[in-house]
């Protein structure tokens, strides 16, 4: 006869947190793990250098007229207007540093899970694939926003503070929105970029190489093709060139190359779409048994 057992355990009386973002613990852990790496901490701090340089330029432009001579030839730093912000958001140093921060801090977000077989632990929780991807992408988004939206808005605020008037704001009332738009562009693109590359390998170092390899290969390809075909449209092959084109358009400035910015936007959006498809295919709850 079967033994009848009394249900001896009791469930917790408290309430489970109905998180609006059930993936937030993944983001929290991802950020925590990034700061566990010594090299990352150094690079994290260094990535604020471009913002600091632009802030100094802004300060000089408003307060230290006499020192303007010292930074002759650096008009883009001291002529504060939409161009100044385009320069900040699309300068090569910032883009390189963002790529470096992501390669070090977020390159292993999916690669490590694939290597350690951790996906099945995530999917043994009340969590879907979208939650997992959102949680991981938010780590990358956190860092990119920290280098784009935060300094961008602070630069607008500091401009007003240093000028002591709202004249700048009244002249360019749309500027904060453009700052947010440019930040969003960089955040979405780089988040998809790092997620895609992190999902194609189980090896962190390989992902690191890929982050820079793909980025600069696209630029080299653009330059080679431009030399061969003599057309600016080859810029569509280049990640940095497309970012610069769209960045300029967001601030209402003429794109640096004679290619419609909307085309560059379509290329970047297409890349993100492709990344989403790859992520959907690569991230399975369990590894297929071979």
């Amino acid at each position, binding site marked *: 006869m*079967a033994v009848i*057992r009394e249900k001896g355990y009791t*469930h917790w009386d408290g309430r489970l947190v*109905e998180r609006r973002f059930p993936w937030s*613990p993944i983001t929290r852990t991802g950020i925590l793990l990034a700061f566990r790496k010594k090299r990352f901490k150094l690079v994290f701090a260094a990535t604020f250098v471009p913002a600091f340089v632009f802030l100094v330029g802004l300060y000089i432009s408003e307060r230290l007229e006499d020192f303007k001579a010292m930074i002759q030839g650096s008009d883009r730093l001291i002529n504060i207007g939409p161009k100044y912000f385009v320069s900040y958001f699309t300068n090569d140093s910032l883009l390189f540093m963002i790529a470096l921060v992501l390669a070090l801090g977020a390159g292993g977000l999916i690669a490590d899970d694939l290597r*350690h077989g951790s996906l099945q632990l995530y999917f043994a929780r009340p969590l879907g694939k979208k939650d997992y991807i959102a949680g991981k992408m938010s780590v990358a988004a956190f860092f990119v926003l920290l280098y784009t939206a935060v300094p961008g808005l602070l630069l607008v605020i500091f401009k007003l503070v240093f000028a002591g008037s709202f004249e700048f704001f009244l002249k360019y009332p749309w500027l904060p929105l453009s700052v947010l738009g440019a930040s969003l562009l960089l955040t979405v693109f780089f988040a998809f970029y790092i997620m895609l590359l992190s999902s194609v390998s189980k090896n962190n170092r390989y992902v690191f190489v890929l982050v820079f390899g793909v980025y600069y290969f696209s630029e080299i390809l653009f330059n080679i093709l431009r030399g061969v075909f003599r057309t600016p449209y080859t810029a569509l092959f280049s990640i940095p060139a497309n970012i610069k084109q769209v960045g300029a358009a967001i601030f209402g400035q003429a794109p640096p190359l004679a290619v419609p910015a909307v085309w560059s936007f379509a290329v970047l959006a297409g890349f993100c779409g492709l990344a989403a498809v790859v992520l959907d295919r690569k991230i399975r709850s369990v590894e297929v048994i071979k």
Partner: protein
Amino acid sequence: MTAVISAVGLSKYYGNILGLNDVTLDIEPGITGLLGPNGAGKSTFMKLITGQMKPNIGAVTVRGRRAWNDPGIFRGIGFCPEPDAFYEDVTGREFLTGLLRLQGFPDAEADERAARALDVVDLAEARDRLIRGYSRGMRQRIKFAQAVAHDPEILILDEPLSGLDPLGKRKLIKLIKGYREQGRTILVSSHVLPEIEALTSRIVLIHQGKILAQGDVPYIRDLIESHPHQISVTSSDPRALAGRFIGDRSIQKMTFGEDGRTLVVETHKRDEFFGRLTQAVLAAGIEVDEVSSPDDNLQSVFEYLVEK
């Protein structure tokens, strides 16, 4: 008793490879042992139950809810996967609190539960050490801790005893039995019969993706006993030894090895044979170098059952 987990006509293919074939099984409260050799389909079955894989044919329900694509069922399921599945750079405590937060527990409760779970598996002292530095046994225990930390009603444990030392195994077996006494439903897989035997008398035999048999331990033991065992005896005079067994009805076949020193005996009654072998060796004064059972493993039993 009502089935907590129910699989009906379940099949799973990996391309051309058959992972699971037409499995129909009800799992009731208590411990159910899933016994089968490596590659039998145990892990596939567990992953289907936990909704981590979509069955090609058939369906699995957990407490009446379809397992596939319903992350909500994991509020009541604890899953301990077979392979190590950790971040190496977090401490044991961080690992558990992170997973408990994903279950929806507030921070304070997650911390408290993590501490309790670590205590249960005797890892309280190692809680602030990085998992990277954990031994194999410790890793196995923390994997178990993450499965039980949220106090689930159903426990799915894939080879939970592998990698543990005898003492660790005893502790974990006691712990799992304790969960059974609390009325939970526990499915444990293993390819080692004594391990499963120590946990439960309710066993499901699985091989090549099929359920071969299910029943209690005596039934499974009988099946295994019906399998003719091969025993190899290396001695100074195998022919003299064979002469001693000519009239023994429990022996089905005897052959001599090419080395001229080995006698291979096939018998249904292995234990009886060993008793008689000792007597024969002593009586004939034969020097025995080695006695081994080349087919004394679960794999050969399964192969025998499949052929049968």
